[in-house]
């Protein structure tokens, strides 16, 4: 599903440049649940951003579902993001003046669906994350765990090939963290490819494969026995 070869990325910091990714090679199959681990500064967020087409690599190939992602201008990147990717952020990033349902329906709006089918699909996904009864609530009226579940529903609504989660439990307590990870596992079991960036080993262990980054290179890439959320 994802193929990355020799990925390099550096950031200019004044006169010097900071090498963040120093040749990453990784292959992810369809249906995998991969944790990308590493301490801060290891380059895991940068990798996720490049995978999410929010950032562009300096060098290297990136193939997503056998499509070579290259020569990205913002318009094309937006189209690819909409078509291929679903995002889940640490700080949820729900639009605070839109109801849960409208938030979930937003990527469908950018896909050009009409209002009726948008709402229908959005409601289906809210139901999937167990929040159908909260569809008309604003994000401020939801708990952290509920917000993240809405965000997951939103990421899924556009039926992406890959779900990218950046510290999805970073702002949650352990109980709600488990809830959210349980949901992620359930979605993965239905066949969705999911990447989770985390620095918590507990969370990483709930995935099927752990890729550890340090100083811009892959330190370790191993399959693990998945800890299932009870």
């Amino acid at each position, binding site marked *: 599903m994802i193929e990355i070869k020799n990925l390099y990325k550096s950031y200019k910091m004044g006169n010097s440049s900071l090498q963040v990714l120093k040749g990453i090679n990784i292959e992810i199959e369809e249906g995998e649940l991969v944790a990308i681990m590493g301490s801060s500064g290891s380059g895991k967020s940068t990798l996720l*951003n490049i995978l*999410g087409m*929010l*950032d562009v690599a300096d060098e290297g190939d990136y193939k997503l579902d056998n499509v070579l992602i290259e020569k990205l201008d*913002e*318009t094309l990147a*937006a*189209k690819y*993001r*909409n*078509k291929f990717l679903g*995002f889940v*952020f640490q*700080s949820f*990033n*729900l*639009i*605070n*003046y*839109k109801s849960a349902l*409208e938030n979930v329906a*937003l*990527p469908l*709006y*950018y*896909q*050009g669906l*009409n*209002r009726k089918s948008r709402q229908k699909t959005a409601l289906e996904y809210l139901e999937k994350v167990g929040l159908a009864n909260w569809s008309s609530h604003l994000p401020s009226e939801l708990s952290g765990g509920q917000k993240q579940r809405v965000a997951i529903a*939103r990421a899924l609504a*556009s039926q992406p090939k890959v779900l990218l989660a950046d510290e999805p439990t970073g702002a949650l307590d352990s109980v709600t963290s488990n809830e959210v990870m349980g949901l992620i596992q359930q979605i993965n079991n239905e066949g969705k490819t999911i990447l989770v960036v985390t620095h918590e080993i507990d969370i990483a262990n709930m995935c099927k494969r752990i890729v550890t980054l340090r100083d811009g290179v892959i330190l370790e890439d191993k399959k693990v026995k998945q800890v299932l959320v009870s």
Partner: protein
Amino acid sequence: MNSLKIIFDWDTWQEIFGSIAKNKTRTVITVIGVLWGIFIYISLSGSAKGLDNGFERQFENIAMNSMFIWAARTSIPYSGFKVGRSPQLKIQNTTTLKQQIPEIQFIAPRNAKGVFGSIPAQVVRKNKSKSYNIYGDFPVYTKIATKKIYDNGRFINDEDIKYERKVCVIGERTQLELFEPDEDPVGQYVRIDDVYFKVIGVHKFIQGGGFETDGDIFIPFETYRKLYNTGDNVDWFTIAAYDYADAVAVEKKIKQTLKRIHRVSPDDERAFGAFNIGEVFAKVMGFAKGMTFLSLVVGLATIFAGVIGIGNILMISVKERTKELGVRRALGATPGEVRIQIVLESVFLTTIAGIFGIILGSFLLAVINLLTIDKTDFPYTNPTVPIPLVLGALLIMVTLGTLIGLIPAQRAVSIKPIDALREE
């Protein structure tokens, strides 16, 4: 998506309504800025128009291109005459002037008693008596200065002149002072300086320019001549030039002709006096035009300031919504879609504000109009703003709204979605 489709797509507008309705404070502040601008614009240019109309009304009972000419004293010795001589205008001058100056449309020789320091006439009716100004007039006078005569009356006509009839047109005040309230003065008789005159009409007095009052009595010129033994003398001429003619130039020509007839030095500026309504009117209308122009400039500047305000607030709003816009782009909004959303928000706010401003401005004008409608001495009538000016202002606002919206829109898309998402 192409942009036209976006504009006519109901969903686009739902997004815009959503964003506008959910940011109420911002929306209200923004709207007030432009609303104020267009409000000022509408009420100022409406008022200027009202002033313009008001001035025009002040002059409505007298021809715009008219003037009075009278004889004063010579200031230069000429042709054997000493200075200080008073030339006497004669009835014969009328035809000479009309023949020699083709720009003259109407010329009315007039005599009067009671103005310019002469003694007014004693007018008696039954046991009531009062003094009034008496004018000796030709019917042509009404071609220059309109005289509104109340129903069943009339002004002096050619027959009156021809037969030297003893008839008179009295003023509203004269009627009030000499007649009983329920009495019809037309057909009655009054005694003017010991001669009985039949009243043929009552004229309605209209304020504005000149020295006439609501008590004036008009009698046929020829009758006046007999009554006061004025011979061929004329006190002054009231002259109307054709609309195409320049009033100042015509005045000059008339004076030159009169100087020639009365053997006054061509360089004598003081021998004949003149009051040129055309000139005054041009000055007043120039002032009104200046006011209109000023109000246009001030109004447009205020609108401009308001639109700049919209841009400013949208700029802040874009900054506030950086994250939201970043999320939208992560979810698949193209830069074009984001840009068009911001611009449409700007245009929508400007237009709504503009329409409200126009409504409020028109409302204010209507109120002022109601308050001033009975005040005939206040030069303010029917304040209006021509539709093209209103539409023009709206067009300017929409254009400016688009242009100013482009700045925050450009800013919104210039931030990379990744940076936008990082923003806390």
